[in-house]
Structures are given as C-alpha cells and as structure tokens.
C-alpha cells in the first residue's frame, strides 16, 4: 500500500505542481477528515478494535474516495445540478460494492470481521463531502490527488486509533505477521477493545490534533 501511495503522489506533483501538494497536505494534516473535520466517524470507531482491520478499512476508503472523486469529476459537467446527490450516491455505491465483492472473494475472514461497515462507506460523510465539495469543482487529476490525500489522512488516523486500542486492549498488536507486545507485566484492559475505548481514544486523538494544530489555525485566521 505504501509504495502505491508514494507513486501516486509523486506522479501528481509532476502533473499538477503546487496545487497537488497543497491538496495533499490539506487532506492528510491541516484538514484531516477524521481528526479535524470529524467526518465519517462511525466506521472509524467501529473497525478500529484491531490494527489490521483499521488498515483494510483505510484502504477501502482510499479506493472508494479516489474512484468516486475521479468519476464525479469526469461527469461534473454532465450531471444536472438538482439530482447531483443521487448521482453521487450511485457512483459511490458502485465502488463500495466493487470493494465489498473483492473482500468477499479473496479475504473472507476480513470481510466477516468488518461486517456491515464496508457497506456503510456509502453513507460515509468523507466520501460524499469530497465529491460534493471538491470533485464537482475540480478537474479529474487534482480530484484523484484529493481522494488519495483524504484516504491517507483517514487511514493514518484510523491506524493510530487501531494501534492504541489493540495495544492497550489486548496487550499486543498482531498485524499481518508483525507482532508487538507490551510485555507480561501489563494486564490487558478489555474496555479498550469494547465501545467505550473507541470513544475515549478518538476523543484524545482529536485533542492531540487540536493541541498541535491550534497555533497554525489561529495564524491562518489572522
């Protein structure tokens, strides 16, 4: 996944210069969809009980966001304004179904664990928001960059939450063969894997983002 991302953003820098970089930085850091805009949190809270689930969910969102941004952007001059919402939902749902079928075919276990939350990407405000706010006004290539940026921003935030919850909840992180353990002295706190832990870790994550970003935001306003 990491290699792909680097290639994509490297390519787009060449293609659309400054705007690509600005869009990328906005999506990942200054306007992180999860921690700053607080969009699409349902899935973020539900699937982050394990790091591997979080990563797959991040990949799913990346795929859907890039796909829907590209097609909404390509069709932006043909979609009548009044029915644009329905058109966007149809495009997004198509990509979600594609990803869901792929998971079911090749990673059945993962598909079982993620349950209905893959389907719920359809109503994920990030994808819809990006299609509405960005792809409708911008040419396809920049829109792809925007999709990638938001996908990564979401994925990174998700991975942080997933890592923290699995580490403190299970005492060790097992992710695609990699394993990190806290040690035997630690008694796993099951609450972190259950619902309250998700709310707590996410609340703290937002606060940390606010803490580091607080000064930037105020300078921007001035």
């Amino acid at each position, binding site marked *: 996944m990491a290699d792909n991302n680097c290639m994509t953003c490297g390519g787009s820098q060449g293609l659309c210069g400054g705007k690509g970089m600005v869009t990328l930085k906005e999506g990942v850091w200054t306007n992180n969809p999860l921690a700053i805009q607080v969009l699409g*949190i349902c899935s973020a809270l539900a699937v982050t009980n394990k790091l591997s689930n979080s990563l797959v969910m991040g990949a799913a969102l990346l795929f859907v966001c890039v796909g829907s941004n590209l097609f909404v952007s390509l069709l932006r001059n043909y979609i009548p304004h009044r029915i644009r919402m329905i058109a966007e939902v149809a495009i997004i749902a198509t990509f979600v*179904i594609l990803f869901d*079928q792929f998971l079911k075919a090749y990673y059945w276990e993962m598909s079982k664990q993620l349950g*209905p939350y893959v389907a719920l990407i*359809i109503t994920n405000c990030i994808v819809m928001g990006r299609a509405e706010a960005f792809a409708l006004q911008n040419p396809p290539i920049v829109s792809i960059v925007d999709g990638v940026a938001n996908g990564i921003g979401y994925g990174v935030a998700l991975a942080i939450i997933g890592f923290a919850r699995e580490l403190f909840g299970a005492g060790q992180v097992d992710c695609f063969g990699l394993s990190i353990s806290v040690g035997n002295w630690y008694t796993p706190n099951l609450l972190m894997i259950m619902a*309250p832990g998700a709310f*707590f870790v996410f609340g703290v994550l*937002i*606060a940390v983002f606010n803490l580091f970003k607080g000064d930037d935001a105020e300078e921007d306003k001035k």
Partner: protein
Amino acid sequence: MSDTSAIVILIAAIFTNNILLGNFLGMCSFIACSSQVGTALGLGTAVTFVMTMTTMINFAVHYFVLVPLQLGHLQFIVFIAVIAAFVQLVEMIVERFSPKLYFSLGIFLPLITVNCAILGASILAITREYGFIQTVSFGFGSGLGWLVAIVLMAGLQQKMNYSDIPKPFRGVSVAMIITCVMAMAFLGFGGMVSL
C-alpha cells in the same frame, strides 16, 4: 433464521446493544445535532419512524425481490435508494398534511438519508437473519435506542456549556469522552438480556 424472541431483540436494541453506543452507527448527526434537547428529540423521533419503516421495506425488498432474482450483491445500492425514496415521500406527505409537523421535523428529514444508522439497521437485520416480526422490533428498538442516546447527550452537552474545559479538548473531543462514559454506563445493562 434466528429464533430470538422479538421482545428480547427490542430490549437489546435499546439498552445492551444500543445502535449508537454499541455499534457506533449514526455518529455524525449525533455529534452535530446534540446541542439542544428539543432538537435532539425531534431528530430522534424522525429517525425512529424512518428506521422502523425502512427496515420493514428493505426486508420485503431483500426477500421478495433481490433473493429470488439472485441480485444479493446489489443490496447496498438498492437499500440506499429505498431509504432516499422513502424519506422523500415522507417529506412530501408531511408537508401536505401537517405543515406544523413539517416545520418541526422537516429540516431533519433530508439529513436522515445520510444517517448511517438507518442503512446500518437494514443491513444488520439481514445479516443477522431476522424474521419479519424480529426485523420490525429491531428497527423500532434501534431507533428508540438512538433517540435515548442523543437526548441524554443533548442534556449533558447543555451542562457542558457552563464548564471550564481545557482548550484542546473543547468541542468534539470532550463530546467523545462523555460518550465514552455513557457507553460504559450502558455496558452496565449487559446482563439484562442475552441475544
């Protein structure tokens, strides 16, 4: 087919497996519209109504249209279309027959289309293989559970306005931490019924 009784499903959906605090569905509007108790109550009522109806309709659509035609993979897109169409219909009917209700409820209806709790409840009812009566009680219970959670949250948020919160925690962050405490409280219902 699951053989849990409808009453148990209803109680579980409200308390032990609350759709918001246990399944994290409908978080966006939960965070955005929980500053006033009145608003929260209006939105909660609208969600309960739409959720009960759409789980019923989607149940019928799934078992009488999609399964016989072997179109199961189109489930998501059909469900979201049904929900959007239903919400639009309700909006028109309410506007025509009860303008007063329209003004108090009207603004929430379009929001509901993108409320993931609605789609989530429909999909969960199918994946858990509920029968018709069970689906209805699950839809209704989930809606009520969501209503309870958002009204409680709105009450707490109103109190929060008067407290001195550290700056980085203000806004959504502290809302999340309150929700965490609420979720822990709801865990206390855990032993009440078992699914």
